[in-house]
């Protein structure tokens, strides 16, 4: 019988980080209505301020200095506030802050300085944060839509530019298509287990594995379809086709934000659904989870395709699109590793580490593209990097650093991420995936370092604009990349508490 929950069961305190963000965004939406059109920077400032405050609080919560949004569950288990939530909060907020800084002047100079930009960005951020806190499949879905829909709109934010509109429409259509798979998957899982709560699913899955309960096929199908839906969000091959087109067409600051936020959200959901809810769903008791093989096969496909195709790209945004596909592959390895119960924690921690490293590096790289991009959205080809080192040594150095980090060269954050991911993969005996990962990393050096080559060894006229918010964003990103690369224990300390698998 349905039990009526009391107001105290809501445990709103646990949800404070994200609910205060949503509330603040709603207020910002209203406030923005009263901000004159030529003063939209006020909205940007307010957004940045809000993110900043939340980020500080989230970092403090992560460091267990304050209790901001602590407590186990809220809304009858639909919302989970644990170390993973804190970590995803931090990643999401850092990305959002950098996203605002990167966009600030770009929007102004391209004439699309509209307050909705920041509001949508904040809603998407809230989506990511909800995803990190999801304790229920329904929340997963709602969070995914809360993340995706603002991103669809943001992709088309530069209307009436055709490329931007086209990318928005493509993204929307395909995204909706993929959401359908996810919903279908959720429905099947519900059908098999009779619940949408992840903890209950876990218990039911245990029963199913032990043979106390039927519904194995349904659960398998549900897991597969959910994997399809989430795989689309993180741009895993073969659900990646939208990525290059959308990245190329959407306004660059949006891509900078989206490339990280969508991935963070998608992988947070995967971690919650697969590594937590379905972690014990094996064909026979004691074996690795059933979805493990599928995930690492996808990972290999993703790494291979992303890295190989990136080689022939001539447009920076497209190149980074394929690069982001490739990086999804690396993270997928870690997700796959989480299927082995013994290394589940380590694997999920490595996912978080990789996301953090990737967030700083990738936003930074896109920020450099924002700097070289012209007002008419041209000059994003590889040629735009030519001779950058002479004209803007610091900018070029930052870009080189990001490229090194994306390649995974030691002393950069990217290396740390890859290191932990491969370590988890080896611990889970996913040797083929790890080998392909290392080999494709080497291949990736080809196109990443070509950019460095262009910057340092070729000559050309360059025209670059780096107003201070952008410069600061690049600076913060590069300092972060370098710092996390040189002091990896910062990262490992951050994720130390993360453990997703349900006990027993």
């Amino acid at each position: 019988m349905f039990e009526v929950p009391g107001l105290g069961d809501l445990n709103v305190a646990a949800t404070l980080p994200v609910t205060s963000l949503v509330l603040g965004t709603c207020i910002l939406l209203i406030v923005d209505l009263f901000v004159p059109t030529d003063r939209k920077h006020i909205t940007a400032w307010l957004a940045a301020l809000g993110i900043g405050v939340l980020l500080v609080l989230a970092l403090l919560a992560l460091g267990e200095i304050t209790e901001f949004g602590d407590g186990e569950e809220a809304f009858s288990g639909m919302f989970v506030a644990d170390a993973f939530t804190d970590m995803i909060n931090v990643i999401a907020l850092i990305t959002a802050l950098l996203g605002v800084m990167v966009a600030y002047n770009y929007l102004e100079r391209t004439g699309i300085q509209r307050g909705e930009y920041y509001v949508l960005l904040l809603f998407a951020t809230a989506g990511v944060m909800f995803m990190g806190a999801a304790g229920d499949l329904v929340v997963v879905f709602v969070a995914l839509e809360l993340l995706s829909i603002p991103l669809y709109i943001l992709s088309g934010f530069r209307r009436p530019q055709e490329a931007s509109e086209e990318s928005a429409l493509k993204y929307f259509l395909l995204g909706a298509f993929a959401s359908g798979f996810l919903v279908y998957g959720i429905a099947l899982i519900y059908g098999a287990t009779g619940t949408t709560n992840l903890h209950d699913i876990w218990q039911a899955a245990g029963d199913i594995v032990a043979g106390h309960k039927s519904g194995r096929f349904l659960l398998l199908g549900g897991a597969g379809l959910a994997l399809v839906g989430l795989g689309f969000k993180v741009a895993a091959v073969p659900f990646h086709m939208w990525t290059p087109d959308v990245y190329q067409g959407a306004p660059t600051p949006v891509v900078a934000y989206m490339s990280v936020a969508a991935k963070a959200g998608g992988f947070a959901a995967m971690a919650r659904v697969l590594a937590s809810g379905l972690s014990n769903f094996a064909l026979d008791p004691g074996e690795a989870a059933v979805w493990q093989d599928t995930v690492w096969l996808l990972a290999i496909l993703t790494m291979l395709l992303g890295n190989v195709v990136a080689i022939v790209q001539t447009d920076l945004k497209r190149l980074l699109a394929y690069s982001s596909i490739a990086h999804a592959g690396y993270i997928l390895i870690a997700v796959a590793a989480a299927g082995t119960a013994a290394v589940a924690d380590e694997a999920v921690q490595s996912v978080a580490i990789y996301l953090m490293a990737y967030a700083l590096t990738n936003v930074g790289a896109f920020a450099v593209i924002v700097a070289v991009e012209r007002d008419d959205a041209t000059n994003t080809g590889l040629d735009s990097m030519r001779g950058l080192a002479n004209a803007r040594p610091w900018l070029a150095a930052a870009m080189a650093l990001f490229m090194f980090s994306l390649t995974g060269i030691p002393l950069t954050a990217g290396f740390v991420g890859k290191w932990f991911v491969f370590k988890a993969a080896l611990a889970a005996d996913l040797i083929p995936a790890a080998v392909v990962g290392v080999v494709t990393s080497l291949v990736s050096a080809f196109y990443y370092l070509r950019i460095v080559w262009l910057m340092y060894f070729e000559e050309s006229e360059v025209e670059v604009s780096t107003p201070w918010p952008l410069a600061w964003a690049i600076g913060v990103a590069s300092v972060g990349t370098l710092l996390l690369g040189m002091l990896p224990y910062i990262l490992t300390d951050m994720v130390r508490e993360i453990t997703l698998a349900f006990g027993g």
Partner: protein
Amino acid sequence: MENFFDLVPLVVFLPLAGLLINLFAGKQLGETGVSIVAVGASAAAFLVAVLLWIAQVDTGYQAAVIDAPLLGDWISIPSAGVNIPWQFRVDTLSVTMMLVVTGVGSLIHFYAVGYMHGDERFPRFFVYMNLFLVFMLLLVTGNNFLMMFVGWEGVGLCSYLLIGFWFDKPGGEGWKNSDAARKAFIVNRIGDFGLILGMLITFWTFGTLDYYLPDEKPLVAHTETADVEAHQAGQAAGSAGLMGVFNQAETWLEEGDHQVEFGLFSLSFEATLTVITLLFLLGAAGKSAQIPLFVWLPDAMAGPTPVSAFIHAATMVTAGVYMMVRSNVFYHASDVSSFVVTLVGASTAIVAGFIAVGQWDIKRVLAYSTVSQLGFMVAAVGVGAYAAAMFHLVTHAFFKALLFLASGSVIHGMEHGHHHLEHDGEHVHDETFDPQDMRFMGGLRRKMPLTYWTYLSGTLALAGIIPFAGFWSKDEILADALKLGVDEGRLDGYLGFAILLIAAVFTAFYMWRQVSMIFLGGPRHNAADHAEESGTVMIAPLVVLAFFSLVAGMINIPGGFPVLDSLFGEHKFTGWLEHSVTYAHAGQFEGLLATSAVVLALAAIFAARAVYNNRALKDLSHDPLELDERTSGMFALANAKLYWDEFYFKFIIYPFQRAARWLAEQLDWHFWHDFVHENVIYRHFQRVTDFLTQPVDRGIIDRAFIRLAEWTQALAARVRVIQTGYVRTYALSVLLGALLVMVIILFPVIRELLGI
């Protein structure tokens, strides 16, 4: 009153504040502002020193250790047991030094305001001067050897900066100045090397560098006056390792048979102390200009005269003596070192005194005189007369500062006269004229009466004529040396006494020679004829210092001296020092000795008067001693400074240069570069790389990689075709992908179903 001790950091920080103000705002403040700040800072530090003095008297001469603000745990490595805090030590010895440094320093600052007037780098000069004060005060106030070393090095740096202050003087002068600065710095480095080695061994031996820990009383192990209770307390503390170096030394000395382990070998504690003290002596020889490292000091006169007075007469050079007095426990324990110290000091005294006789430059004479007097002090340490050494240090600070400042006044007057001449156009520009050369002077008594009288007072003090300050201190050193010889039958006592007595005779002689040449007779150059008395700012400090040169000796009237002992009290100064210098002991008045010393000095003065009589002074292009064939050889030797610099050049610097050149050319260039690099490494490397590039790299690796790259690119191009840009294609791909995923994930189940 004990609260006053907490003021001691101010002694360092006040000049520091002054220098910072002048450093950043010197240009804006102007000469007046800079002067007020610099002199004010110095005077304020002096005031603090006076307060500390009063507090010392008031608290019954309690030594106090004050932690420096903020930097208390200056160097602390808990795991290694290294703890060298920055602590200030206020005891009678350090307060004496503070008073001398800040007191004389303030007067010299004041004087420098007049002397440096109009210099384009006026603010910078005072920044350096205040910086010098800061370091000198660090040196004397620290409670451990490392703090002292910081000050020690800083003082060396400041002397380098100040000696070379006029590095850009035209006509090659600037080069001479900067050469002198470098010489001072390098020679001092040799001494520093000794000091730091000594410090390292000290630390190795005792595990600490603190003189005494806070609340620790000095022990006296060998004398009956030892406070038994404190002694036992000290021993108890010593077993726990909670003692400063000196008390540990005392404890071990009393226990006897203490071995110090040096890894491969061990030394008896006494031998270790001998090593330490000899190394310290090397340090002192550098800073206090003793044989063999005294050569820098005469050259250092290249700096502005206030610098000469300040650094090279009154304060910096006393650092070595201070350090040795501070380490009196060590020196007392080592007879070998004491003997060496006595010899070094005494021979320095006589060598420098001899050289001074043959110099023409007014400041150079004073410089050698300083070296000679420092020899007196060092010899005093050697014969165990630590109080006498400090006493002489104090009185010498007064009259030597006075003499330098007065000489500065003379030089100023001469330059003034020279300018005057040029202005009037009477005299064509004289290339050979040198305002410091005594041969161009003469008869200045009438032109500059105040300078003359103050100079005379300084001269008499230096010569050791009763009742001037120098008499008392020098006499005490002589008496102590003799006493050591007579009472304990020690050879170094006799030797020291004899040599120092002769040196004292030389002192009186060359000082009177100088007075005669500068002030007596008639002017030998038009510039001297037109010289004028200096301004009040410069004269005032002279008068003050002259007063102290006259009366400073009264602070330590030897016991048994008629009349005065009851008037001023017997050896007050020694009594004051005894509270911090363990082995300070009072000198007894030896009437015969004192009389004979004064008589000898007077005789020397009269001899000088006879040689440099009015007739000789009329035309002084040559020294009368030079003309007399009996003494001409000696004079030439003195004039050439005993060929000391030449000796160094020929036997140290030149061989060193030769060796360096040989090493550079033969070893580094011919052998290392030409042979090893060019032939061995480079040639072989090339051969290997040739092989690697041609057949291996181009043939195998390149071809493989080009193939791989072509293949990858072809593949990529083919894959790219799928990327059509149509949503329907993409959707289809998603659908197919979904099918793929479903097949993969359901594969085990399908297999199961089909029974494969």
